[in-house]
Every structure is written in structure tokens, then in C-alpha cells.
């Protein structure tokens, strides 16, 4: 068994936490995991991504191009930026919530989230798009968009572990103060998808 997940987003969106939760769930299900995260200076409003490799064997933490089974995109442009990692037939879940870049250095192309979303729709059959930030906001905080997307991933049934396993990890890892909001976000996203 081998299952590769890529999470893409912008610094501050909780990519690292989402990746940790998935990795822990995979371990609970008895697999080896290795993850690679963007940590450090690039986090400050920059593009960030996390690679999570789940399998029977230990592998290097970077997913090879064209091998990801699942791409969770917390923002449209960052989803497209990482699309080459996705294998043919891989699943994409994208948060339609826009985050314009903080500055526009000379020569940087314009931010066109709608164009990017239609590109995604055209290239990924079975694309799931939803404003997870809004959904999380309704659950209590827009910050839980990352956890909401995990709920959506669980809802698709593609993950190599059960949604209960993931929920257990969530319960154990998220501080009590935020637990209720996060599980609401998780569950309502899961329902919306399945």
C-alpha cells in the first residue's frame, strides 16, 4: 500500500497541523509515514506545502511528481501551483476562499482565482470545490478551514484509514478549547461532501 497526500496553502493556514493529524491517523492504522513541511522564513505569507507519504515501506518524504493520490488545496493558486504532483486520476479538494498575494513584485502575474478554479475544473475530473473558510467560519472560526478540509477528505472515502481513526486523532491532538469548533467544522464538511 502506498498513499501520498499533498496539502498546499499559504503561511498561517494551518498546513503543518493538518499534515500532522493525517500522519498520526496513518500511524494509528499501522502504516509508516514520512512528511515534509515548509518551516521557517518561507512561512511568512509565502507559499507552503506539506507532503505526507503513507505506506508499508519507509520512503523519502518528498512526493515524486505525478504520484500524489490526494491534493488538498487550502487556496486556489497554491492548489494549481502543486498540481503537477497529482497522479492521473488523483483526487483534488480545493478551498475556493481567495487569498491575494501580499505584494506584487514587478513581473508577477495577476491573481486570478476564478480563472484558476476553471483551470482546475477542466484538468481534474471529480474536483471538489467549496469555500471551506466560510464553512469553518459558520462552525465557529474561519481558522478551522484546514480541519474542515480533512473532514471533506474523510467524506470522499479515499483515505487509507477510517474517518473514526482521524476523528480520534483530532480529539487527542486539538486542545480542548478549540475541540468543539474543530469537530463541528470537520463533521459539517464531511456531510457536505458525502
Amino acid at each position, binding site marked *: 500500500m502506498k498513499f501520498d497526500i499533498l496539502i498546499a496553502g499559504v*503561511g*498561517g493556514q494551518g498546513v503543518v497541523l493538518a499534515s*500532522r493529524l493525517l*500522519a*498520526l491517523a496513518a*500511524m494509528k492504522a499501522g502504516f*509508516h*509515514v*514520512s*512528511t*515534509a*513541511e*515548509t*518551516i*521557517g*522564513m*518561507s*512561512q*511568512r*505569507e*509565502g*507559499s507552503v506545502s506539506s507532503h505526507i507519504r503513507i505506506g508499508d515501506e*519507509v*520512503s*523519502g*518524504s*518528498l512526493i*515524486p*511528481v*505525478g*504520484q500524489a493520490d490526494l491534493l488538498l488545496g487550502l487556496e486556489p*493558486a*497554491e492548489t*494549481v*501551483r502543486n*498540481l*503537477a*504532483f*497529482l*497522479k*492521473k486520476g*488523483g483526487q483534488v479538494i480545493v478551498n475556493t476562499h481567495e487569498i*491575494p*498575494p*501580499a*505584494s*506584487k*513584485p*514587478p*513581473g*508577477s*502575474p*495577476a*491573481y*486570478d482565482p476564478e*480563472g*484558476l478554479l476553471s*483551470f482546475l475544473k477542466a*484538468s*481534474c475530473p471529480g474536483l471538489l470545490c467549496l469555500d471551506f473558510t466560510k464553512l469553518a467560519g459558520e462552525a465557529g472560526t474561519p481558522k478551522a478551514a484546514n480541519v474542515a478540509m480533512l473532514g471533506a477528505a474523510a467524506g470522499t472515502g479515499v483515505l487509507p484509514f477510517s474517518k473514526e481513526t482521524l476523528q480520534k486523532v483530532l480529539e487527542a491532538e486539538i486542545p480542548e478549547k478549540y475541540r468543539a469548533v474543530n469537530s463541528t467544522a470537520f463533521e459539517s464538511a464531511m456531510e457536505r461532501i458525502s
Partner: protein
Amino acid sequence: MTEKKLLMGNEAIALGAIEAGVQVATGYPGTPSTEALETVIRYAERGGIYTEWSSNEKVALETAVGAAYSGAKALVTMKQVGLNVASDPLMSLSYIGVKGALVILVADDPGPHSSQTEQDTRAFGHFANLPVLDPATPQEAYELTKLAFELSHEYEIPVILRTTTRVSHGSGDVELGTKAEMEAGQIEPVAWDFEGFTKDRRWTIFPRLTAERHPWLEGLQVQLSERFSTLPYNTVSGKGKIGILASGVSALYAKEAIRGFEEIFTLFRIGTVHPFPEKAALDFLKGIENLIVVEELDPYLEEEVFKLIGKKHLAVDVYGKKNGYFPVSGEYSVGLVLDGIDKVLEAVGEPSRLPHASPVVLREELPPLPIRAPTLCAGCMHRTVFYAFKRAAKQFRKEAQVGQKEQTEQAMQATQTAQEEQAMQAVQTSQTDTIFSGDIGCYTLGNAHPLNMVDTCLCMGAGVSIAGGLSRTNPEAKHVAFIGDSTFFHSGIPAVVNAVYNEADITLAVLDNRTTAMTGHQPHPGIGVTALGSSSKAIDIANVVRSCGVEFVKTVEVESLAECVEAAKTAMEFKGPSAVVFKGKCVGITKSDKHCVIDPELCTGCGFCVKQLGCPALALPGGEGGEGGEEEEGEKARILDNCSGCGLCAEICPSEAIKTEEVLK
């Protein structure tokens, strides 16, 4: 069965050190090494481990050396460029050796992701005659840390544990020993059972001692190479006729690249890279005619294997970086290793080809994407200071230009040709400019558009001295050196002393945000808090600068832009070394109770705030410059949730449309 833990490589290293009985741990923060010492610190109080963030890597190493001379087990952590700072003590230490154990964690950064060099610590180990271990996963990092302590103790030599970003910052499932398995709250204190320092001439380096020790050091290389050949961290798999030699994470990439085609290859993975395990390599090379070497950074293994082939007159063809089969720089990946191996297969006439993955879309087919460069946080004090100096410099330029215009006009009457006129204008701009020397920290991001306030950046502490050098060769320009608080203590002070001693006409701008921000907010000597969180004496930067003999020293709380501009200007006017210490808070660790709002009635949509500051909390619809990139006047600017209410944009808004609000957070 013990339960596995999900650990980052750096955490696994810390737990490996704890399992090995580490008693003293020191370091200086540096990405991607920082979390190793941070983790030891979490266990330190209960575990009875002495830990400190030292003022720089040289100091950290020397402190650990003192402990190891006394028979203690010591760990010191740093990033690869930190090893350059620590290289002075390290090079001598090779000859002297240690008594307890000394393990040096050095994290390399192929890419590089967050470093100024792509240097290879395996090569450094070779240069310094020190053993180097090179793990590929957090599990291996944990085990090799323990091995490093054993080897260091047994051979009385410091051992380098070298990682790369993907190992230090990657996470994985790790099976731990009993002690390391314990949580920070339950761990038993380590026995403080070393014998203490014994006076002996072996601890005092002298030319004669070095001459005596050098043969020992060279002999040790042979001994270690033999020992390494017997260790289980160097493994051979497969029986194919094409050999692959690899270490670190590259070995895993190679393993994955040949999956399904293992029968063609024999893979030799090396975990103990220096001294090169010759015997094991010779065994592996039996029957191999074609050898592929897969490694990031330097062609270290490739050169070692060349030496061996030459020495033993082996008939082996080597395919690696040196003959262009693999890239000489940058980070590797499975895809890249696949391409390299495929090229080799073609060269040796092997009919089979490795399967390449087929992505949904190729990178080249992606639509244009906005650049999302890292930026200073919303409300970062550095932005205010950079902008203040920008304004101050502009004022100087104006004044100078007025003065020069008069001069030029007089000169113009005398000059005739257009060429001469042009030459004169070119000189004018450079003479009236201010040159801004930057340094290493979050504030290096001041180089980004639209601030563009970092003209030079080289290494920790270099900004001040480079400004001094520039002032000699560009005497008409103003020279400002930005330096962060932690960097000031790290290596800024000798440069300040030099500026005073040699009378450099420079302005030092200390960006004192009371933390080592970029690496994740570690304390430093200016804060009055130790690594463990206990209070200590806070060293006042302004006093240090004053006591170095700087006559113009001003301290400014970064609250209003106008005050910062004023301070910048007076300091720049001062003849000789001057300094302004800008004090503020890092918004990365302080919660703000303010927020700014734009009054849509007053905002004319000029976009001035957005275009001048590059604050990530300020946006024009469609990004800076409006939709389509070009000026679309009339679109109102917006302030996003991440605004921390610093008020900088309010101060520069030409229509006074921005107001500050108190918020309950």
C-alpha cells in the same frame, strides 16, 4: 512492542541524545537545526540536563567542549553556516579530542530553502578529520545520534551528525528506547556522574602538542574507516550488475526510483560517510562495472569512490555529478534521480527504462501564478524602521540634489559635450544615495518589493563591517547598517568596535524586537531570559554600543513613523559612527489589541498605502495595482483580519482615511 511516535527529525535527534545520557546541550538557532535543542530544552528541567542558547555557534561549541573535557556527554547544535562560525575551535579540537563525548549536530540545506550557502558538512568533516554520520529518516537520526555518542566516547573525538532539511524538518514514525519514550514530564534526571576536569597538558594546544597529535588523528581515520565497514548502518541490497552508491535522503530517492527493477541494481547505502568505509565499499564493488553515485550537494562519495578505484586499480565506470549525469547543485527528488539513472541506463546500453509517473498536468502547462514571496508580518516593526530610513534617505537625496544642481549648473557652463553631461549625472545619483547594508534575520525580507531596503547581505554580523568598507570607497554616500538584536550579540559587536576604532562614518540601525524571530522566537542575551525561561541579566544594546565608544546613540520606541524618521535623519547627519536602537515588539509573539480600518468615504483608492508598504494586511481588490496589474484608480483599499494596528499605513495615507480601533482579542 513499544509504541511508535511521530517525530520530526530534529526531535528524534534530541531524544536520541537523551537516551544516550546527554548532560550538557548548547547551540545557536538556525534553520533547519533549531528544534533539536528546543526539544532538549523541554526535557531539561526534569532530565537534569544543562542547556543554553549560546550567543553564537563558536561560543556554543566551546561551552560544550569545556563540558566534554570534564568527561560529560555534550551536544551542540547549529546549521551549516553556523559551523563556519564555529570552525576555529573545531579545527583545533580535532587534534585535542574530548574525554566524555561531544556530538555536533549540523543541518545542511540543499536547495537552499533558508540559508546563504549550499555547503556540504560531509566535506567539512573530511577537511577537519572528524567522523560524520548521515541519517536519511527520523528513525535513523535517532539511532545515529546514539551511535555518535558511543563513537565519540570510545575514540575520544567529536562526532558530527549531519542532516539535511528533509531529515531535520521531515517527520516520521520512530521507535524509541525506554528512556526517550517518556514524556518531558516523567523523565528521570540523568546521573551527573562524570569525573570532572583533570589538569593535563593534553588540553592546552601548542605547536608541539599538535605535532604529536597529528599522527594520532590520521591513524584514527584508518581505524574509523575499518570500524565503519563493519557497522549495520551501511547496507547493500540487490544483486544487479549496476551499482548505486548513495547516502542520506538521496538513498531513499534512489531506492524508490528503481522500485520494480531491483534485479538490475545493487544499492549501497552509507550512513557513516566519513571516514569512508573503504572495506565495505570494496566488497560492494565486486562484480560492479558501472557505478551510479546519488548524493545532494558536493560530490563527496563520488570523490571517495574515485580514490578507491584509483588505489585498487578497479575497472569501474562512475556516473555522477562530475560527468553531468546528476545536477551539481540544488535539492534532489525521486523524479530527478529517475532521470539521472535513465541517462546512465542509456549510456551503458541497458535496454530497460524505469517507468516515469504521469502527472495530471505538466508543470509547464500550468497557467501563470502570482509570486507569493515571504514578507514581513503585518505590523512588523522592521517595516516601520525600513520605511523611516527610506524617507530619511529621500530627504538627504533631495537636499544633496539641490546643492548639486547649483554646482552642476556652474559646471555645465564649462562643459560642452553630451557625453560629459551624462557621466556627471551617473556620478550624481550614486553620490547622493544611501547604501543600506542588511544582515541575517527576518529583516533580510526588507529586500523585497516594495521596500527594497537591503542593498547587501552576506552573513551574520557582516552588515556593519561591509558598511564600513563601503564608506571608504563611496565617501559621498550615506551608509546605514541594519542589524537585529540577536545578530548584534552573535557577531555584531566586533564590527561596532572596529567602526569606532577606525572612525567609519556609518549609522547602525539596531532592529531590537526582543527575540530571535526568524528561527521561532528563541531568547537571547538582551532579553533577560535563559533558554529554560528563568531570568538572567539583560544586556542593554544601547549601553554596549555606547561603551564601545559610539558617541551618537539614541533609543527609539517604534510607535510613530515620524519619530523614527527624525531619529534616522539625525543619526545619518552625525559625522562618524552613530547608532539608533529601535525597540519594538515582534508581532509573531505578541497579541495586539488594535486594528486599523479604512474609511471608504475618505479613501480615494490611490493605493499609496498598499504600494509603499507591502503590508500583508493591506490589499487592493485583485492585488496590488488592481486587476490586470496596472493602476486602476478608484478601487478602495482594504485592511484584512491579520492587521495588528501598527498604524504605519494610517500615518502615510495622504487622505487620512485610516483610523485605529481598539479591539478585544
